[in-house]
């Protein structure tokens, strides 16, 4: 049986329902909530603040430090053991690289901007949701940015090229699957995160990236709206569930 129709009736280029909100964590200098389907990410920004240990400081500019973490009950299967693991460390690193091109930290030598990304529930696409939440939170913290980074996964399920794969599509086993998370900077038309696992031809990949860019433009609008809403309603409650 070929995968011709998505199991949740979405069109190939259609993302799951997205919800975004800025300013959800009062203690943080900037924060955001980003939900895409059943994947939920919180991001909190603390800083610029002192960076210890000292040898990690950069005298020419501030350091961006991202920390991606799944809550222990947020996985599709067994409990995830708390604390960093190889996967979360890699995702933290690629998240930093995805965001660095848009952020200007030259005013903050020797300081650090910490971004903490936490996921209470996931259904694939968590690194992309984390990047979307992190960009909103950094803007909410008032840091200079030339754009909000938007991210989504694209890929192939059997013969169909689709946007925003969920867990069921990632786990499809009657045909080849490719999962390609991308982050897109719309202001400069550049890609700042690109990973892939699975099987895909170059033509299919390029088609997928074009679809992903279009989806990211829509996500970018939702991110901007979250920030605007924050300032239209600065004393709004912190209720996001």
């Amino acid at each position, binding site marked *: 049986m070929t995968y011709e129709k998505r199991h949740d009736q979405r069109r190939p280029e259609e993302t799951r329902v997205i919800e975004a909100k800025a300013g959800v964590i009062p203690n943080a200098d900037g924060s955001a909530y980003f939900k895409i389907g059943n994947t939920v990410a919180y991001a909190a920004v603390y800083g610029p603040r002192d960076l210890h240990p000292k040898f990690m400081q950069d005298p020419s500019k501030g350091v961006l430090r991202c920390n991606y973490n799944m809550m222990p009950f947020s996985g599709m299967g067994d409990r995830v053991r708390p604390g*960093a693991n190889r996967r979360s460390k890699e995702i933290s690193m690629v998240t930093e690289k995805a965001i660095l091109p848009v952020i200007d930290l030259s005013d903050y030598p020797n300081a650090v901007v910490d971004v903490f990304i936490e996921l209470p529930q996931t259904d694939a696409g968590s690194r992309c949701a984390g990047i979307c939440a992190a960009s909103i939170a950094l803007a909410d913290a008032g840091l200079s940015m030339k754009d909000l980074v938007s991210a989504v996964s694209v890929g192939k399920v059997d013969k169909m090229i689709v946007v925003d794969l969920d867990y069921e599509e990632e786990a499809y086993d009657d045909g080849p699957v490719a999962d390609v998370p991308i982050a897109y900077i719309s202001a400069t038309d550049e890609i700042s995160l690109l990973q892939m696992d699975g099987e895909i031809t170059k033509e299919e990949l390029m088609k997928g990236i074009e679809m992903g860019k279009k989806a990211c433009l829509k996500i970018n609008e939702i991110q901007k709206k979250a920030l605007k809403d924050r300032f239209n309603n600065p004393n709004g409650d912190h209720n996001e569930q």
Partner: protein
Amino acid sequence: MVITMNNEFKNHIIQALDMNVRSDGRKLDEFREISVTTDVSKTAEGSAIVKVGDTVVIAGVKLDIGAPFPDRPDEGAIMVNVELLPLSNPDFEPGPPSIEAIELARVVDRGIRESRAIDVKKLAIKKGEKCWLAQIDICTINDAGSLLDASALATIAALKNTRFPAYENEEIDYKNKTDKTLELEKIPVSVTVFKIGKNYLVDPLKEEEKNYDARLTVALTEDNTLCALQKGGELPLTTDDISRMIDIASEKAAEIRKYI
């Protein structure tokens, strides 16, 4: 937000408390607004978000299958863990649990365990071989004081919300939750009473929490039986203090119980 601590500030807090004044206008024995929302994480078997003022915690329950302890072959097990996430407070750092996180988890655990809220015999599957393991994780989203009481409330709300996943041919199917709930025999509620100067107060703000002299956490069941206690802080308590603090906790626990 950085709160500086010094003796003048502490004296200021005490003087205000002596006149029944708190910086947010509450009475000494008054909680901030509490809200409990359950089923907030679809990947957990049970979950809840609790807000107490600006404090937000989320608790999630994962049910797994493991081997019973050799000395308790016909019982399942529960485990409570607290993650003081660096997202929730600028002073929290990533890494192994701090002593604060460990104490918090153990006090919440005792409230659940010693009240026998969960009949662990009902978690047995095959004597000496297989049992259910209820793993409760509490994650802090925003720490604006009173994490312990909020965590205990989130835990009991999440446990009450828990549904067993389908279990067939010795395999758990986490995607399919059954209607079978985790039956709670008792509903323990924890209230921490703080002593600052000669004043007792509940639900402290961060500034009060950083300046207290002593605290007493009291977990109580519906019939006002005490099921766990934990004294904290640098100064000792008199028996009169203890008696009065338990009375306050008992009165407040009855109010909080309405949210579950």
